[in-house]
């Protein structure tokens, strides 16, 4: 499944920099050093964190996309940073667990 593909399954587009990117697995977590230590490149990263550091971590850890859950919104300055660094960000009102369950049926 590509990042764009998720948009047909209820995930909303926040920043779409490279929609053709393939998602290979998923990591869920809000502590950034855990994400950097455990997430794999090309994973979808499910989190409720939405500050600037999230963009840096997603970019440096090379995740396929960030998925903001629980209806969390991205502040404007963070959105601009994601656009600048070619980071994909999607969002959903689902809780993190439900988002992960849905994702696992799709990828």
């Amino acid at each position, binding site marked *: 499944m590509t990042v764009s593909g998720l948009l047909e399954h209820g995930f909303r587009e926040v920043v779409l920099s490279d929609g053709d990117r393939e998602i290979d697995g998923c990591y869920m977590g809000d502590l*950034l*050093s855990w994400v950097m230590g455990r997430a794999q*490149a090309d994973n979808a990263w499910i989190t409720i964190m939405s*500050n*600037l550091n999230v963009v840096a971590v997603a970019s*440096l850890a*090379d995740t396929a996309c960030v998925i903001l859950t629980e209806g969390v919104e991205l502040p404007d300055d963070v959105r601009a940073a994601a656009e600048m660094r070619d980071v994909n960000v999607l969002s959903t009102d689902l809780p993190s667990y439900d988002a992960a369950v849905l994702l696992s049926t799709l990828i």
Partner: protein
Amino acid sequence: MAEPLVFHFDVDGSDFTSAGQASVQIKKSLRQLGLPSEIIRRVSIAMYEGEINMVIHANGGVADVIVTEDCVEIILKDQGPGIENVEQAMQEGFSTATSTIHSLGFGAGMGLPNMKRYSDTMEIDTVVGVGTTITMKIFLNQ
């Protein structure tokens, strides 16, 4: 490349909401050099963890990255408080971070272990009250 490439950054210690700019810049430069993406990922994460540590624990510092044909070397130097017990600091979960830092998503006590995990060699040179220098190497031909 015959001559080593050297990148130098001053890491500002005053703004930890947007820290990590040196690492982001290095990622870009290594991409332009055409290094394999797995190497770039390891360098980027190891350097970012060190850069964030300088900002949140040591009020900033300087970062140098030296790229040769067979190695990327990252040298992070600060004049912060130093690390009292390196063995303890290297353990997963050990952190002295404050609640402000926790609210940003840092302070899990995983940064130094990640730096060790993603580098091939890592040396910590630290003196309490004087500062800390961390040198990491990532080899390209392994």
